[in-house]
């Protein structure tokens, strides 16, 4: 009995509900797929992914196998389709990644990097301010309070808050310029 006939026989038994035959069949199929896919896909983890997907498809489609026809032809049709599907999705993913990274400079990754760095620089500059101007700038620009609210909280007049904030911005500007 040839290997193809043996696999066909095992599948026939698996279709009838024989789990031992099905396990033997799937182990054999795994070996066949490994040798088949190793010549087509060079990344080992991707080979495993495609084998898993193909095994799942084999399991889902086992009712469509006609034992009068070649098992290998049936199996390779599924494997071939899964390889194409996998390569297509890989290509799409890679293209998308390239587009995101190089075509559009305002990517999320780049933006978050810029934001992180800017945040650190501004924080350092703020820390170097005296306590009162630092507090006022934080209340106005970080917490987003109005001048009247800051004045009430700091128990200072509104004009005082404006003057202190104005001076603090000037100092911050000088400090930030020196860092960029």
């Amino acid at each position, binding site marked *: 009995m040839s290997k193809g006939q043996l696999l066909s026989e095992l599948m026939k038994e*698996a*279709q*009838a*509900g*024989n*789990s031992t035959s*099905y*396990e033997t069949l*799937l*182990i054999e199929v*795994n070996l066949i797929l490994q040798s088949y896919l190793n010549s087509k896909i060079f990344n080992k983890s991707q080979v*495993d992914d495609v*084998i*898993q997907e193909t*095994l*799942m*498809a084999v*399991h*889902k*489609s*086992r*009712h*469509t*196998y*006609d*034992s009068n*026809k070649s098992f290998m*032809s*049936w199996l*390779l*049709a*599924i494997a*071939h*389709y899964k390889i194409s599907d996998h390569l297509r999705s890989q290509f799409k993913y890679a293209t998308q990644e390239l587009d995101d990274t190089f075509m559009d400079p305002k990517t999320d990754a780049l933006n978050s990097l810029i934001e992180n760095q800017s945040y650190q620089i501004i924080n350092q500059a703020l820390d170097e301010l005296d306590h009162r101007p630092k507090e006022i700038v934080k209340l106005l620009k970080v917490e987003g309070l109005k001048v009247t609210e800051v004045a009430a909280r700091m128990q200072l007049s509104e004009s005082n808050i404006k003057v202190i904030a104005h001076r603090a911005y000037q100092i911050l500007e000088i400090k930030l310029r020196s860092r960029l």
Partner: protein
Amino acid sequence: MSINNLIKSFVTDLKPVKVFKYGAKDYCLILLIGLFSILISLAIAGIRNDINDIIFTKRFIFEILILISLAMISSISALQMSIPNIKTHYFKKIIFINLVVWLISIIYFFINSEFVLAGWGFNCAQEIILTSVIPSFSIYFILKKASTLNRSVVGWLILTAGASYGALAAYFSCASNNPLHILIWHSLPVLIAGFIGFIAGNFILKKV
């Protein structure tokens, strides 16, 4: 999950399955549904007045045979291609040849014809689309249990088959013999339906 664990999970809850394959019964069923929808369409739109004059002409017989062949082969191919098999490219070739022969024949008649204006044929296109609904859905439901690998091609075949039945109905109800009219209002809807099927197949048909 490792491959060994995956295999074990498949084996542990294995249940017997009923082997699924298509046969003459399914093909005949689709043909009957197609003919039935043509009859409904003709009952609504009516048969052309000059049917007795043209029914035995070579051109009419040739075009009808081409369309019957296109409808039958497309539906058989759609069913066959929804079962994994490596030797399915023959079907695509046969249907492509069929379509090309049909289009070339219309162009041939167009070149040898005195008529030039296509005329307004929206009714024909509408009839083709409406007639194609029942056969297309029937094929879709018949192959729903199968495992369609190439979903876009099967989608193309389903709507080409359905629209071919529609085009057959249009040949019997539309009184125009103008090849340009047939090319624009009878052939083009079949091609467009096929194209829509090609796009929709990926979304409508279940992924294996």
